[in-house]
């Protein structure tokens, strides 16, 4: 059974290798190879899941030692895989949603001449992501961590001929690298502290180390999570990452990769539990991001960027939950899974809309699409209801639990965090309703483009709608399935631990408040976008709107401070290197050259001149002799 764990990774890895080196002769079947291998991985996952379910809760951890990876004195990095309930959850999410999106991409990328390569990258992503969640030590996790970053880089920049895509890809990788710096420092800290970075020894004996060390490790892990999960202050790449093909946005930048940060924090729960300061930082980052993302999401007219803001915000919820400690871990993961369903569904829906609208992304040029694309409308609508937390749908269960847990944190912090989460819920309702109304309701607002091609909205082919339907089913029933009887809680508890907090308010009050927020959010959106016609050109908007359109000026800050500053720094350094460092050497050389030029003039070729020197030398010798005798 353990060998199957390795196969989980091997299948998509093989796919990537075959597809990327296979050459053009695989162009016609490449996408099916990719999809098949992804599905195979899912099947392996299901088999393993069944195997785990058949065991006692305490024995649901499988370890597979593959080989000794980096054996250096005192430094043992092994290629060891670990499958427990937490990673199992991820495996199923990744391979399941991944396979669906592979299927969807078959249709979506049909007309792209580089489709084979696209599937190669997708498979590469799956392999890396699986490695990330299956690794048994932090260094191996790091390999997966950067591996998904690479896949993300390749996929965001898939349409490399567009400079914006290439820039976005580079930006994503760079911002992620800043986060990776955190992860590598965290690993170094672990090594310096525990002499190892395998999960077992580190997490098992986390409390052996001082709290200061643990806080440092926790903060570094948080930095890593911020990079990967697009949390403030490293969130700027996610919006630009929407330059990638939509299935990529659905899989990587909504359902799986961006949630890796949550995985990391939950996985390292033992470290955070012993470092309250780090935990506080996590919750603050989560709360800030959930509001930040929500506000940005409200202002965007680009459907994908609006959804990206939403993703940021939802992951903020998860991080917030993860920062709450044992009371929140399970709910963070639960929200992660349900979010995986509905956000992937929403993105696929958006992709379907774009597919029918000649790749138009501006929602102000949509409108009234519900009659043209009924299946997309229904599946998107279900996803919409799920994300805003409509009672009974999956988002309702998972988000409600997080808000409750935030209150349960207790004290002032609890009130602030809970309040932020509630506010976030209201804003979520607002912006999602806005997206829904602008896209599917109202009058049609599209016009012929400059080439005179008027879009002819149409429903997408079966191969695209089936994944959407499956995901919609998941978004509708997932939450209820997990929550009723606390199934999910019992499943994960052995890994993450769980404790009930002491909420100052009752669960029903929280639910009620959430509902009120929901209604307010939807109502405002309806008043603004449902009753009135949406202008096809964006109005100027208030100061806040304009700031939110520009990602709350964070990019401008980055540009001015980091990009411009960096450019000036490097330019001046190039100058310094050329004039100063090189100049010292060249100056020395020139000095010697000049000196010898002067000296050379003494060598005028006249014998008499030389004779003077000789005579002077003789005089000096005499003088020296006399001096010596005198002394």
């Amino acid at each position, binding site marked *: 059974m353990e060998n199957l764990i390795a196969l989980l990774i091997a299948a998509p890895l093989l796919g990537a290798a075959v597809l990327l080196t296979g050459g053009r002769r695989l162009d016609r079947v490449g996408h099916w190879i990719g999809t098949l291998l992804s599905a195979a991985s899912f099947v392996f996952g299901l088999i393993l899941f069944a195997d785990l379910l058949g065991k006692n809760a305490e024995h649901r951890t499988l370890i597979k030692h593959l*080989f000794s990876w*980096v054996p250096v004195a005192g*430094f043992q990095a092994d290629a060891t895989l670990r499958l427990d309930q937490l990673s199992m959850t991820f495996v199923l999410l990744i391979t399941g949603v991944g396979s669906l999106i592979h299927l969807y991409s078959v249709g979506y990328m049909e007309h792209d001449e580089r489709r084979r390569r696209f599937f190669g990258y997708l498979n590469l992503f799956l392999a890396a992501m699986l490695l990330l969640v299956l690794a048994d030590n932090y260094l191996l996790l790091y390999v997966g961590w950067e591996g998904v970053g690479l896949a993300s880089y390749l996929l965001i920049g898939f349409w*490399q001929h*567009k400079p914006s895509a290439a820039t976005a890809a580079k930006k994503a990788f760079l911002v992620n690298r800043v986060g990776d710096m955190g992860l590598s420092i965290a690993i170094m800290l672990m090594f310096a502290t525990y002499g190892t970075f395998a999960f077992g020894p580190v997490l098992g004996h986390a409390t052996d180390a001082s709290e200061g060390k643990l806080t440092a490790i926790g903060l570094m892990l948080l930095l890593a999570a911020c990079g990967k999960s697009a949390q403030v202050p490293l969130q700027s790449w996610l919006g630009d990452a929407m330059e990638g093909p939509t299935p990529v946005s659905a899989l990587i930048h909504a359902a799986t990769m961006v949630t890796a940060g949550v995985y990391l924090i939950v996985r390292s729960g033992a470290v955070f539990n012993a470092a309250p300061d780090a935990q506080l930082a996590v919750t603050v980052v989560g709360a800030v991001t959930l509001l930040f993302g929500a506000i940005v999401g409200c202002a965007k007219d680009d459907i994908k960027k609006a959804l990206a803001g939403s993703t940021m915000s939802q992951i903020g919820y998860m991080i917030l939950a993860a920062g709450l400690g044992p009371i929140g871990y399970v709910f963070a993961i639960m929200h992660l899974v349900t979010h995986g369903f509905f956000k992937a569904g929403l993105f696929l829906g958006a992709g379907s809309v774009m597919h029918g609208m000649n790749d138009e992304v501006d929602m102000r040029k949509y409108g009234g699409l519900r009659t043209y694309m009924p299946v997309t409308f229904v599946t998107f609508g279900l996803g919409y209801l799920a994300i805003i937390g409509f009672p009974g749908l999956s988002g309702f269960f998972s988000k409600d639990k997080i808000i409750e847990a935030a209150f349960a944190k207790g004290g002032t912090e609890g009130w602030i965090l809970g309040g932020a989460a509630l506010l976030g819920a209201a804003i979520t309702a607002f912006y999602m309703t806005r997206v829904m109304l602008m896209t599917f309701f109202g009058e049609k607002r599209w016009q012929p483009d400059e080439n005179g091609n008027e879009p002819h909205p149409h429903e997408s082919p079966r191969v695209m709608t089936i994944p959407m339907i499956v995901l919609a089913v998941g978004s509708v029933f997932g939450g209820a399935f997990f929550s009723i009887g606390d199934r999910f809680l019992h499943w994960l508890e052995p890994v993450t631990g769980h404790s009930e907090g002491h909420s100052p308010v009752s669960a029903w009050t929280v639910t009620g408040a959430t509902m009120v927020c929901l209604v307010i959010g939807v109502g405002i959106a309806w008043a603004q976008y449902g009753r009135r016609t949406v202008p096809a050109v964006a109005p100027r908007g208030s100061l806040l709107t304009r700031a939110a359109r520009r990602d709350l000026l964070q990019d401008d800050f980055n540009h001015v401070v980091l990009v411009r500053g960096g450019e000036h720094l490097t330019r001046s350094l190039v100058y310094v290197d050329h004039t100063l460092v090189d100049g010292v050497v060249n100056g020395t050389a020139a000095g010697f050259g000049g000196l010898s030029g002067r000296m050379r003039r003494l060598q005028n070729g006249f014998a008499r001149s030389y004779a003077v020197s000789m005579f002077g030398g003789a005089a000096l010798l005499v003088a020296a002799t006399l001096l010596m005798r005198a002394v």
Partner: protein
Amino acid sequence: MSFPLLTATAALPAVGAVATAAVPAAQRTAAKWLALLVSLATLALAITILVRFDPGGARYQLTESHAWIADFGVRYELGVDGIAVALVALTALLIPFIVLAGWNDADPLETGSRRWRPTQGFFALILAVEAMVIISFEATDVFVFYIFFEAMLIPMYFLIGGFGDRAHAQGEAAASTQRSYAAVKFLLYNLVGGLIMLAAVIGLYVVAGSFSLVDIAHARASGSLHMATSTERWLFLGFFFAFAVKAPLWPLHTWLPNAMQEATAPVAVLITAVVDKVGTFAMLRFCLQLFPEASKWATPAILVLSLISIVYGALLAVGQRDIKRLVAYASISHFGFIIMGIFAMTSQGQSGATLYMVNHGLSTAALMLVAGFLISRRGSRLIADYGGVQKVAPVLAGTFLIGSLATLSLPGLAPFVSEFLVLVGTFTRYPAIGIIATIGIVLAALYTLVLYQRTMTGPVKPAVSAMPDLRARELVVVAPLIVLLIFLGVYPKPVTDIVNPAVKQTMSDVHKTDPKPSVEAAK
């Protein structure tokens, strides 16, 4: 007496160099094939060394010792430890690729004069460099090492000054001037370093009465040879200066960008992947073994310099407009890592540094050679002259990307393992320096990806629209390197197994032990 394997490995390319140079002017192709065959045969010998080397055995193996200049106690002594074996193998491995990559680089532009034989000279010089580098790795006599360490400059000088990129933008005259400037700069920098080292070598003889590394190290370890603290420090500085120039370490680095910029890509690889390694290798072998106390004394300063190298090299790489210069500054950054690993004085750091030397050789070779293929197609080194290459030459772009990713130490590729080992090794002893060095990781991503973005992505520029993709010969050069990069990234154990015992020995030479994890230390 057993077969002198080490001598043979160094002598074969030397003989090959003479033979290649002697090929008649008309038989250009024969000279190329001869050079390739010799380099492959050398590789076979190097592999034999690798096989016959027993990691668990004596420190120096396959030793040879003959009297040479008896009056000065100079003996022709060779021997390899794990570190040397790894580097000999790297050198022997890279030369065939360099030969193959430079296959057409030295063809005469016009086939007029029958006496003019640049092709023969080019390959003969490469083989000569190989011979000298290999014997420098093998020498366990300081004097023998010094001779070849210095003699290497002569063929390198001609390789840099004599052969450059084709179709230079500013015309052949300007290119020739810049080439000779670069070559002279290379020579002067290294000569100054070498002269200072010569003084230290003589000083060492005066103090120790022997040139034998083994004898001196043994005498030092057993306490029978006592050096005054200041003497040891001066001698150490003399040796270190030469190696720091060669390596190169900030602020002695400025010759490298010029040399790499002006030389052809294969020669640039030869400089940075092979020749410069002698500098870092010698730090590990000579500085630490001969002068353990002085090495420890100088450690903080050297670590700071290497840190500056890392960050400074990376920042300058970001600011470059010339592809080859960019790679050169990236190499300076990487050499900073290597030196940092050596002087971190931990087993992780030193193993990592040794591994880094091998991996950096592979990754730079991959990136630089592909860059060379790119440059030879467009006839320009300026990044701004490219754009959208991946559209017209996807394989070239793909290999270039993998080379870039190796340069930025992506996990899964070989350089990651070594870079992380160096960082961890440094961090356990000097946390602050380790943390600052991680900035290098981010900057590496910046310069490589900016390079990739500007050259390979975006709309196709008219000048590159007809660019052919990699040819079979070029693919033969690049593909094995990439396979090796991936293999050593996933499974570096074969190399670490060879290197670890040698590092353990070195650590005991400097009387250092790894810091204990703080949890254990607290108990």
